């Protein structure tokens, strides 16, 4: 194994269980850190005609046109006014860059193996297939999202459509 491969391996083990956590309503969610490119403030959108309500529009991210979806609306939660805490997590999913609006970003956490559990059978408004597992850090329960699924799902077709 070359040096470079060793380093890469070390990085991926170190980051495999790292999650960016954020809040949506009362709940805490986590997305694998490698999916998150950056987090930006709410810049205002340009609307795109005839889109489902959770597709808020597009933004200019350093010259690239990036679509933005509101996770609250996607998960059928109550819509909320955007304020100074509202942030957009810029995610890279299947070579596409997509912005996701969340209430606020909380932390970057590392979960040990025993702090993670497979998907339970309950529903929290979020469809079970969007959840890759549950994490526990102290008293907080974190819903780990399978963001690829969330964004590829048929009705959005964000990633599948040509």
């Amino acid at each position, binding site marked *: 194994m070359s040096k470079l491969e060793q380093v890469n391996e070390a990085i991926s083990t170190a980051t495999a269980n790292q999650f960016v956590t954020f809040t949506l309503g009362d709940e805490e969610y986590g997305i694998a850190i490698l999916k998150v490119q950056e987090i930006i403030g709410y810049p*205002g*959108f*340009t*609307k*795109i*005609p*005839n*889109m489902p309500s959770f597709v808020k*529009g*597009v*933004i*200019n991210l350093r*010259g*690239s*046109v*990036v*679509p933005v979806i509101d996770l609250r609306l996607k998960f059928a939660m109550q819509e909320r006014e955007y304020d100074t805490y509202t942030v957009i997590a810029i995610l890279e999913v299947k070579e*596409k*860059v*997509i912005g996701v609006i969340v209430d606020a970003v909380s932390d970057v956490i590392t979960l040990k193996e025993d702090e993670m559990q497979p998907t339970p059978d309950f529903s929290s408004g979020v469809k079970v297939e969007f959840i890759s597992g549950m994490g526990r850090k102290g008293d907080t329960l974190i819903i780990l999202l399978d963001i690829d699924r969330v964004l590829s799902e048929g009705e959005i*077709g*964000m990633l599948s*459509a*040509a």
Partner: protein
Amino acid sequence: MDQSSLMETFITEATELLQDLEIDLVSLEDSGEDDELINRIFRAAHTIKGSAGVVGLTALSDFTHSMESVLDLVRDHKLVVTNDLVSVLLRAVDLLKEMIRVASEGGGDIDEREMQFVLTMLRRFLPAASVQESITEKEVPENREESKYAYFEIELALPETILETGTDPLMLLRELQDMGEIVELEVTTQDTPDFHSLDIYKLYLRWHLVIRTRELQSKVENVFVFVQDSSQIAIEDVTRFFKDGVDLRVADMKLGEILTDKGLVSKKDIEEVLSSQQKIGELLVQRGKVSEHDVRSALEKQLKSREIKKASTIRVDTDKLDKLVNLVGEMVIAVARVNQQQCSMLPGNKRSAQGAIESLERISRDLQEQVMRVRMVPVEGLFSRFHRVIRDLANDQHKLIRLELSGTETELDKNVVEQLSDPLKHLIRNAIDHGVELPEERVNAGKAEEATVKLCAYQQEGEIIIEIADDGQGIDHKSVLKKAIEKGFIRNDDTPNEKALYQFLFMPGFSTAKQVTEVSGRGVGLDVVKQNIDELRGTIEVISEVGKGTTFKIRLPLTLAIIDGMNVKVGEEIITIPLLSIVESIRPTKEAVKTVQGEGEVIDARGEYLPLVRLHSVFGIETDKTDPSEALVVIVESGQRRFGVLVDDMLGQQQAVIKSLEKNFHQVDGASGATILGDGTVSLILDIHGLEKMAFSSSQLDFGHRGSEAA
């Protein structure tokens, strides 16, 4: 350079060579025995053969060899250029292209039967004897045998006294002759004294010779074993410089060098002669043919052109270029943003800042233009390909057609050129198939027997225009109308104008051809052409006169990456409309807007009733300006028809760098892309065709006709 990049280079070069070869072959047919042309063709084939061998494509190399043998006969005027010959050669070119395509895809099958067939056809042109020769002697053995031979260069300076020892130099030479073939032999007689001081027992001669032999160097050296101590004998293996007994080194040598090398003259002699020799320019001046000034300027010109030729070209990956174009576009926008925001800058420095920003803006625009120009290529390459198409089709259909090209130096974006190839080919086929009549029909109609298809390109107001014109029978206006009614595109009593009527030709499944041929007439084609042109954001129209001919006129934007846009406001949103599709903008009076039952709203634009599209309702944007008489109607043209687009207001014109929505998202109905405005926000670029589809998908019936019933 590793093998794969060698292969890549070969593929690009061979593809280019084949393209030239094809064009040259077609013009060879017209011009007949043009030595320059034949040589060029021969060289191209030869280069392909050679490089194919280098990259290990032996099948390709062998095949080209057969082609080369035929071309060789043509070059030696042993074979007359005929239509038949050119056809076979073109077929061989097609096969080579296919072989290269297969090679570029890393392997695959080529049509073995076609190859055998073409090979047989090619051999037919070779005289029986030479076929035999080229197969049995020339092709196989000679190449192999040649490698068995060695060439030795021998400098032979025997001692003056050699004759006294009883050794005859001639014996030595004869011995050499027995070992092989002496391909070069020179005797230096410079040392021979005047006759009266000549000593007949002395040897004054020196020899320089080259021998082609199968023997080893030691064997050759053995010949001189008895004299080598007392003589100056140099034997050198020069095999690498020789081929078929010819010294290849001589090719790049000057006459003087060759002569001195052979010891025929001394260096000093040459220099003496050279210094006494006058340059051509001086001679001409002396004889009063030209002035000294003219000679000097001609020399300067020569020098300059040689320098430029040396600078030549480099190949650059188009990806790199695209990135550069994007970045520069980005910069132009950024500068525009700075310019827009300078009002809010420090008031005291505003003036000097403004000057600086203005010059920055100018420079960045210049830079943009230059970078764009890098991507531009002349249409010549594209146009000349059609000589072949025309030739083949004319032959097949027994028509006489001449292709006339003009404006071939007009430059277009490389991507556009590539994407134009198919639609143009189609239009040309169309012109030949439907437009051009048979020679006898043309004569009967009082036209020249030979038809002309003109392909011309020119630039006009930020657009490139390409015209494909034939002087054939033209389009029958009535049968198009009949067909349009038959297909239900228009009603019986409609009288669309000619321009609108001909647009039906671009509808899928619309063909007025009486007979369906292999080439065209199935009604697929023109719609695809239209689609291709749409994709390039161009438009196409038809001008035709019965009996005189048909012209297809394609308008294309100069570049794909940037458009001139008009920013319009709808509610909170700013939308960019491509300036090219805007005809005018009006604020209608209340009376000018009418509702037609079942067809929506129309507006009266100077007597012409145009359908009105409310952008806010099609795009679902909230706005309080819903009354056309308080808002603005932008009249746009989509190629098929005109219609009015209702917007709140017009904000101004801006160059827009087109950003893809598909890159991170997917296609959006009604938007052809997006662009970034001066303040950094995103603006959608309106897709007029898309909007038309969205707005009129329910009613197909109001194509371009004047809505008399609306009034």
